[in-house]
């Protein structure tokens, strides 16, 4: 990345820029509410003009020059390739056409399982969260799932309260045994502190790169399970001026998200 930002940036801006860099041109990506929308819009403007965005209620291949506020809003099929419905989108994912799936959650465990349903017991919850929505389907069908979250010891847990969306479930082979399509699963977790991946054998989360100014120890301290470390741990470059300008002056000029 050229010209690192001379000005400061927020954790949300960092999450957006880091996620955008993971979006590849000429690939399909299932886009969830919030940060994935901004990241996709940024990626299309930077390096991935033909990032084929897929939105669950029917939009495919939208040009994201208007910021979506909802996964069914007009922006999700603005100048798109097609505008169909939810069954077509889910079936397309189930047939293996969608490479990346970008999702979020309230809690994540070492195997990349996500909770967005309840905090506490399901039938007597402390906090009732929205529920799966398309999360479970994205995590089931997309080849590579990328979770975007804030990282701390309340969110990164050895055992989460409820598995809404499947990661590697209980470990190697568990997805296939459950009947999920082979070769799918969590790929990256993007946080304000790090970019994490999954060990190819143990399927447990491992640290791949730290965000600018963050130490490895800080990432470990903000994870409530034993974190595997990759052999070499990279340091992510900070958001560039160009990325920040695009975010602030074009993509979210009304500052609805950032």
């Amino acid at each position: 990345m050229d010209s690192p930002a001379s000005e400061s940036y927020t954790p949300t801006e960092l999450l957006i820029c880091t996620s955008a860099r993971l979006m590849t041109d000429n690939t399909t990506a299932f886009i969830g509410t919030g940060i994935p929308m901004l990241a996709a819009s940024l990626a299309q403007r930077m390096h991935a003009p033909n990032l084929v965005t897929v939105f669950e209620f029917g939009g495919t291949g939208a040009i994201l020059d208007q910021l979506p506020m909802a996964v069914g809003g007009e922006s999700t099929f603005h100048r798109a390739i097609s505008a169909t419905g939810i069954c077509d989108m889910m079936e397309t994912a189930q047939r293996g056409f969608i490479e990346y799936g970008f999702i979020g959650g309230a809690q994540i465990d070492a195997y990349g399982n996500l909770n967005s349903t309840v905090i506490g017991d399901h039938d007597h919850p402390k906090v009732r969260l929205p529920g799966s929505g398309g999360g479970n389907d994205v995590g089931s069908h997309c080849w590579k799932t990328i979770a975007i979250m804030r990282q701390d010891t309340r969110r990164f847990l050895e055992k989460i309260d409820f598995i809404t969306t499947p990661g590697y479930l209980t470990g190697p082979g568990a997805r296939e045994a459950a009947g999920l399509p082979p070769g799918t699963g969590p790929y990256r977790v993007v946080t304000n502190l790090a970019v994490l991946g999954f060990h190819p054998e143990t399927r447990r989360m491992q640290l791949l790169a730290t965000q600018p100014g963050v130490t490895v120890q800080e990432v470990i301290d903000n994870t409530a399970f034993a974190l595997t470390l990759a052999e070499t741990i990279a340091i992510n470059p900070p958001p560039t001026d160009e990325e920040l300008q695009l975010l602030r002056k074009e993509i979210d000029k009304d500052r609805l998200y950032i």
Partner: protein
Amino acid sequence: MMQVISEGIGPLIRPPDLNAFREWNRQKPKALIDKRMTEAEAIARFVHDGDYLGTELYGTVRCPMSLVSEVVRQGKKDLLIAGQGVLELDMLLGASLVRELDITYIGLEVYGVSNVLRREVESGRILNCVEWSNAAFALRFKATAMGVPFAPLRSMLGTDTLRYSSAKVVECPFTGEPICLVPALILDVGLIHVHRADKYGNAQIDGITGFAAEMARSCKRLIISAEEIVDTEDFRRRPDRTIIPYYLVDAVVHAPFASHPGEMCYVHKRDEAQIKEWVNASTKPETTQTYLEKYIYSVKNHQEYLEKIGWEHLDTLKVSGDSNGQPCI
């Protein structure tokens, strides 16, 4: 014989009876009847206490808010709800009209969790939350639309979403692999807002169609509201554009801006300030009631609601034409 490997512990809120549904569909009138009526008449005639109710699309997009507001105004209670929603289900939850939920997503999207969902569930006022994924949810309607009692799907597997659903995992009789089966969902009443309809109930939707086609075919009774009422000749000239044929429909309500404060693609944008007013009001029970009083109970009908919001303001939300500025019909 297909072996059941595991099954969800969630109750099957409404076991599907496809034979009864066939009989029901057979007796639905196929005559061309003028079904235009007001929200008040449609809800009074076709929605009853204890009904299983579904809405489409969702929340802030092409949402049947004028019909939902009338359900709240008439206080239809003990509802069973197919829960894919944002503001529309928030209104029903805020008014404590919901007894049980088949839920996939109820939240406020960019504004986070639904405060009224939290209060209704955490207090125990809602008896059951049966969990589903969005694909499972849409497929349950699709199964009904197909006229079969279940449909297979490769999501939900291995998760608590499945454990707290009423889906079953079986060994596929063709591949031997585990596959998830979801039961057909037959609604008592469906509420759908569309771009245009004729007086008999034929309907067109512009832009994405969400799960309108599937849900419309899964309802015993279907009420549609439409931005505009057009001549039947418009449908006969472009039959490929008909997403809901008239014989599925029981009532047609002419309701411009019925999705407000949500958006209606190619017609009007969402009303961010009004959405935020609900988000803020819904944080406390008292202010929730104040909002419902102001925008639903104290208002006679949708027309009066629009007047309260103000036409001058509504005009600022209008857009004209599609992504290229072209008219849609």
